[in-house]
Structures are given as structure tokens and as C-alpha cells.
């Protein structure tokens, strides 16, 4: 059962029953409950109390008179509830993400690539590293991209000056690449993973 429904009104009504019980040292009758909740009919009160019974907040004796249940424990408002106590850990874990979610922004357009060569070593990308490449991102100056230049695939910094595009290596041993014929951007590097063990 979803406890989210219980927010607002119903929470107030639980509070009203609790106060009635504290004041009178007994539970209300259905007609008293109806007037407590501001209902015209006893039936409406009966239905609402049925819900509270399901939640274990009230119960009834063999004659049908109401007995207090777990009224003094305030209801925990979590996303959802099953039988038993919700553990505080669950509550907190809703705000965490997996390493996958952390590393990947667009799951349908992200690919793995094993790095070969040392042309990006000064950017901290070593041969054997595993980079995550997103095909749906439009590259900006300073992004690291995979690109096909004159039939050759390469991993470089992307630089745009006016209408010209350059590919800059992060290693002094390699020259700046100025594409002569064709340049295809295969995607933008969004993360680098290096597993040691």
C-alpha cells in the first residue's frame, strides 16, 4: 500500500484520533469519529477507519468497538511501504546512484573504447585505458573526441577556431592535426576508466 496517499488529510485525521484518545482515555465511536473528521455519514468514517485498521493504527474488539493500535508512533512517510518496519537505509539509498549512472549521462548513446597509443598521455589518458564515448554530444573546444581524419581514427582534443577545426594531441611528440579532406566526429569522451586490479 502506498503511504504517500496518507500525507495531507489522512495524516491530520490520525492526529485527531490520537488526540481524542489522549483526552478521553478511550477510542471514539463511529459517529464520534465522523464528527471528528467532519464527515456527514458514519459510513465514510467506517471506511476511513478500515484503512487505518489495515495500517495497524487502530483495531476493534469482538463487538466492533475501536481499540487503539500503533497511534503513538508517528507514521513514517517513505516512498512505499510493505509489511514490517522500513529500514532507515532504504530511505537514504534512494538518493544514491550506481557507478554506471555516475559515469554515463546518455545510456543509449554511450560506448566503450580501449585506448591505443600515447598521444593523449598528458591529458591523463594512457594506452589500455577504457574511455566512455557519447555519440549524442556535440563537441566543443576543449572536449576530447574520437575522430576519423583522412581515413584514420584518433583520440584528440577538439579545437574550433572560426570555421576551422583542429585536433590537438596531449603529447609533445605528436603534431597538431589539421584535417585536409574529411573529418568525422565519432563521439565525445565523457569519462576514463582505469582498472588496476
Amino acid at each position, binding site marked *: 500500500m502506498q503511504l504517500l496517499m496518507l500525507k495531507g488529510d489522512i495524516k491530520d485525521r490520525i492526529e485527531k484520533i490520537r488526540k481524542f484518545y489522549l483526552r478521553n482515555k478511550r477510542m471514539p465511536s463511529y459517529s464520534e469519529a465522523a464528527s471528528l473528521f467532519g464527515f456527514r455519514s458514519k459510513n465514510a468514517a467506517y471506511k476511513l477507519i478500515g484503512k487505518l485498521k489495515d495500517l495497524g493504527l487502530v483495531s476493534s474488539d469482538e463487538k466492533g468497538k475501536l481499540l487503539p493500535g500503533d497511534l503513538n508512533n508517528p507514521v513514517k512517510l517513505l516512498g512505499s511501504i510493505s509489511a514490517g518496519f522500513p529500514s532507515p537505509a532504504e530511505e537514504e539509498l534512494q538518493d544514491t546512484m550506481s557507478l554506471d549512472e555516475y559515469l554515463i549521462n546518455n545510456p543509449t*548513446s554511450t560506448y566503450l573504447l580501449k585506448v591505443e597509443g600515447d598521444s593523449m598521455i598528458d591529458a591523463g589518458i594512457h594506452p589500455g585505458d577504457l574511455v566512455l564515448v557519447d555519440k549524442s554530444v556535440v563537441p566543443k573546444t576543449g572536449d576530447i573526441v574520437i575522430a576519423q581524419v583522412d581515413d584514420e581514427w584518433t583520440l584528440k582534443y577538439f579545437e574550433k577556431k572560426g570555421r576551422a577545426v583542429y585536433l590537438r594531441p596531449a603529447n609533445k611528440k605528436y603534431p597538431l592535426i589539421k584535417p585536409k579532406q574529411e573529418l568525422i566526429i565519432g563521439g565525445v569522451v565523457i569519462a576514463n576508466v582505469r582498472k588496476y586490479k
Partner: protein
Amino acid sequence: MSENTNSYPLTLSSYPKAIIHVDCDAFFTSCEAAVKPSLKGKPLITGKERGIVSCASYEAKGVGVKRGMRLFEVEKICPGCVILPSDYETYSLYSQRMFSILRRFTPEVEEYSIDEAFCDLTGLRRVYHCSYEKIALKIKEAIEKELDFTVSVGLSISKSLAKICSKKDKPSGFTCVPGYKLHQFLKEVSLVEVCGFGPNSVALLNKRGVKSVYDFVNKPQEFASKVLGKIGRELYLELKGMAIYEVIKDEVEHKYLSISKTKTFMPPSEERDFVKAHLFRNMESAFIKLRRHKQSVKKITVFLKKQDFSSYGLEAELNRHSSSTMDFTDIVEELFNKIYKEKILYRATGVILSKLANEGHDERTLFDDILKIEKLKSLSRAADRLNNKFGKHTLHLGSTEFLKTRNSSIHPRSNVSERKLELLKGENFRKRLNIPLLRLK
């Protein structure tokens, strides 16, 4: 209704329903070229491990390579063709991605096959502030950009029509047929293009003077029912623009009507134990899948495929449903002995499980040995647990031990996908990262 009046619109509305059919172009080879761009534009086929073409790229199709063709024929008519072993793992990853892209646009997505989907776009114009054609185009562009291969999209007012549309202009086709253009479109569609009309239906319709889909929809509805029965009536309405078939959103828990497992071995073999071992391995795999989907089975079919591609099979039925492999081992053994013949080369074996039910609804007869049934059931469960932990088929039937006698030929390196051979750190032959790995070199 104005039947027989030439060129009279079948309907005046544009899109009473907007249904698209998305069909990947040469899916398996497209995935291969997407992870390895150097393969783009080259004649390319997959299916090396089976000895026949599973999928051919458009470049290979262009010179006459067809699905099911044997590899030596391919080498003859298309020298230089790149022949790759299938990498179903990568294909499945791409397939999943395509469906998730579609679900970004609409929740109503039907996974029709690994590379085909139907989507219902009805009502989405308001969300995207554009026409259905534009939405369909956006979907096509998103898939092509993110997955790096082309798809063909058909948009029309029923599933059957959408499917005809997507086939119209392959590869990378984009065909939209609103209701008021339907009568013109159908004149260009031959009966064989309709999904559901096989050669026999077409021949039958031809005999009744129906030569095209346009002829067909201009007949009265009773004609369709009379000639082709219920399916005929449904297709008639679909083709006329009334959506009869709904886009079936896939249930969270997929239930199968039948499960089949087939594996081809290269080279073919006549060794009794080896062929039998293959059959039992297929049976084990089928039962693992059965139990994973919490189903049980009553009927089993086994077949052996000979070197000349003819196959022989037999089926048997249990008196109750079961999900235990061991309940069927004796039956399969018996069936195998009946169909196996000495001195014949076999190239594949297969198992089909049918008459499936949900696990737990197993009826028992008075004379069943319930203790034994329960023991076998818990044995299967234990085997599944072990195999999940230590790898598929770690614990297996004794008769499959004979697979090892020729182990080198089950997994010759050249028949295994590159992805499984070049593992990343931390990966193993059994499990790899669930993201496609690009190979740029």
C-alpha cells in the same frame, strides 16, 4: 461505401491512428559496422560459425548474397567479402538500446523482433508540437545518431500498413501514408508485400481475380472472410485503414509459447555420442531458459539436421507439466535413438519445448511418484544455482561430456566473436561489460 469506384479515397482523415514500424537495415552486419567503422561500406556477412549467411550487408546483397546461402558460395560470388562469426551479445545490446530510444518518445512500444518494433504515436502531436511525420523522422534520426546505423521507418494508420511502408524504400527508408493517400499507395503494393499473405494466400487470391492489394480492399468484406477466414477479414480491415491489431506493450515478465534451442556444429559429424551430446546440451539450455522464465513444459520435439540441410524430428508428450531436465532425459534419449542413423553426417541438433504453462500450476496424477518429482525439481534448482555462480553448464548431464572430445571444433577461435576473445581487464569468457565496445583500428 463506394467499392469499385476507381481512385476514390478509402478514408478522408489523415491519421485516425498513427502507428510506425521501425525496421533496422541488415541489423547484424550493421551492428558489426557500428562497433568497427572500418567495415562500413564493405560487403559483409555474419554467420561464420553456422557455415551459412545469417545476415548480409547491403553491399553483399548487391552482388547477390542472400540469407541462408552457404559460405563457399559467398566466397565465389563475392570475393573479398568479410565473413564474421555472429556476436549476439552485441546485437542484443544494440537491440535494447533501440527499444529504449523508442520508449523515450512513446510508452507504447512493441518489441516485434530483435530488430523490429511497432510504436503507437497517436495523440503525441501536442507533446512534440509537430506532425506525426516529423515525430517519426525525429525518432529515425535519434536512432541513427545514437546507434550509428540506419533504420527504415513506415508511418501509417494501422500496423499492417506501417509494416508495408517500412519495407517500401529500404535501406534507410522513410515512408508515410496518411489515410487520404491510402488508395493511391495501395495501387503500388503487391499482395506478397503484406505481412500475413504467404504464397498460398496470394495464389488463392489471384485465382479469385485479386491481383493487387488495391483490388483486395475494394472487394466487399464478406469476400475476405470467405476466402481467407478470420485472418483474412482482419487483414482486410487493417489494409483498409482500420487498426484492428493493437501495439502490444511488452509485459514486464515475458512468457513464451515455445522455447527452442538449435546449434550447428562445424564440421558436421557422424559420431553418435558427439551428436547426442549436442542434442542434450540444447535440451539443457532450453530447460535453463524455461526455468528462468518460471515456466514448465509438457511437449518436447527433437530434431537432427543432416549435412544436406534436411531434418528429421520426433516429438513426445509427458502426462504432466514439468520444469526438470531429468524428467525428459529418458524421453530424449529414446527419441534420439529412433531418428539417429549410423554413417550419416549431421550438422545440427535442436530441441523445441512447447505446450508451456506457468510453473506451479503442475497438475499431478494419482500414480505419479511425487517424491521423485519433487526431488528432480530441487535438483534442477540446485543446478541452476550452481551454474549461476560458476558459469553456465558447469554442472551438466553426463552425456554432454562427449562434447569435449572435439572441444576444439565447438569453439574454434575463428568462430568466436572478437568481443569474446579480446577481453577487458576484469572480464571473462562468461561475462563482459554491457556496453558495446568500439574497435577503431
